[in-house]
């Protein structure tokens, strides 16, 4: 598998973290997944440049969905796991080799729908992993069905007369569960996403970043914003950056406000350190999150 490497000038800045031979990727024109992925890769490179993170230690785990396809493009150790199970898979990675750092990158349906129980318990345990959830407000890969994040009243192929359900505010939920780092940004804030990842990746415990994204091909079409730019602007309209003081101040309301910002930023011991407080494993002093946090 010899990879043809084009001249440096003709490569993207993050190309060395991509399986470029597979580009262009499958995502539709204007899909926000790529924006999020790029921010992640930029963050990795930036942290690497500072000597904080070593890409060999990262394991990039995705579930099934459009977002889940990301693992096919990222040139890191990784896995494309069954629908809803990337967090579960990541448990095993970390337990087997505590020197690795699992990064879960997946869709809202995958993580908060079918995968909700793992999200719940990983956050509760403050289990050491970074989770980046791309929230495109629907089940995109399967054609636009209702997601737990779909706005109330919105059309989806399984709620053709409008969604009767109350959506889930996933970031708020994870914050309520006591994760170490919780932030929500939208793709209008690529630098903030990158910064959030730079802050969260080297941190111990459970770190969760929700990125509000656009799926113009399916979600946009259903709600009448077919062009990526229109949907981009529609989403920008409700995305409001704030510094909420209580959980109750965090909003997830497609008509008025979806609160953006950093909701939790603390540094309590993660799961791995907790077991180190009970057993003296030889890796206890080499947990990368512990070392990195200190830098």
């Amino acid at each position, binding site marked *: 598998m010899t990879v043809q490497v084009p001249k440096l000038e003709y490569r993207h800045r993050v190309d060395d973290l991509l399986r470029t031979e597979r580009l262009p990727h*499958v995502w539709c*024109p204007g899909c926000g997944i790529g924006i999020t992925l790029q921010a992640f890769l930029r963050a990795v490179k930036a942290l690497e440049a500072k000597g904080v993170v070593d890409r060999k230690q990262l394991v990039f785990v995705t579930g099934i969905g459009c977002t889940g396809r990301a693992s096919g493009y990222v040139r890191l150790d990784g896995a494309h796991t069954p629908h809803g199970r990337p967090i579960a898979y990541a448990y095993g990675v970390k337990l087997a080799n505590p020197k690795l750092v699992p990064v879960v990158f997946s869709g809202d349906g995958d993580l908060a729908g079918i995968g909700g129980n793992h999200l719940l318990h990983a956050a509760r345990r403050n289990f050491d992993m970074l989770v980046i959830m791309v929230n495109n407000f629907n089940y995109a890969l399967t054609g636009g069905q209702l997601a737990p994040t779909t706005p109330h009243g919105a059309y989806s192929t399984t709620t053709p007369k409008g969604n009767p359900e109350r959506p889930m505010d996933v970031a708020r939920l994870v914050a309520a569960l006591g994760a170490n780092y919780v932030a929500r940004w939208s793709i209008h804030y690529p630098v903030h996403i990158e910064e959030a990842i730079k802050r969260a990746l080297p941190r111990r415990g459970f770190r969760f970043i929700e990125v509000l994204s656009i799926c113009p091909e399916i979600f946009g079409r259903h709600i009448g914003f077919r062009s990526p730019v229109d949907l981009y602007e529609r989403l920008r309209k409700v995305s409001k950056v704030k510094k909420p003081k209580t959980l109750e101040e965090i909003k997830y309301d497609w008509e008025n406000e979806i609160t953006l910002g950093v909701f939790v930023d603390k540094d309590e011991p993660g799961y791995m350190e907790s077991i180190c407080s009970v057993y003296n494993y030889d890796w206890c002093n080499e947990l990368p999150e512990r070392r990195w946090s200190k830098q």
Partner: protein
Amino acid sequence: MTLEIIIAGRGGQGILLTGYLLGKALVKKGYYVVNSEMYSAETRGGFSRSDLIVFPSEAEMDIIKVRKADIAIFMYKDQMHSYAEYVKPNAQLVILDGTFIDEPAKPWPRVLKVPFTRLAEEKVGTYRVANVFMLGVFSYVTGLIDPETMKEIIKTSVRPKWIEINLKAFDAGYNYAKENLERVEIKL
């Protein structure tokens, strides 16, 4: 006798809708019709293919995908080349969109090359209905489907705001054929 029809083109050309409309019309005529689809994952630059197999009755029904087409409709060059091997050498009729295709891929005996896309743009105002324009032509040339039936079907199968323009395209194609083309007898 079974009639096998293949319709192929690029993603976005409305290939699947064309097959569906044609199939529905043939079902209305009393045939047992099988219509299967293939398409690629990409939105652009991908392919689309719609197969129709027309059986005189359900008892004779067997295959689902075209083995060798009696009628082939190619709306784009690349797909013509990809699927030429699935067309009988002595196919009853091969229809090509002359907008994108210069030469038939094989020496089929009866080839009808019409620049559907260009004509649709010219006569109906948008290239997007080239497929239904083609159906108008098909209807006249083959006599397999009755234009009124097809127009009824269009009315119930297409999104409301698209009905008008599609009916217009169908008529335009039908009239174009009437004025410029000869009929072909299809055996079934």
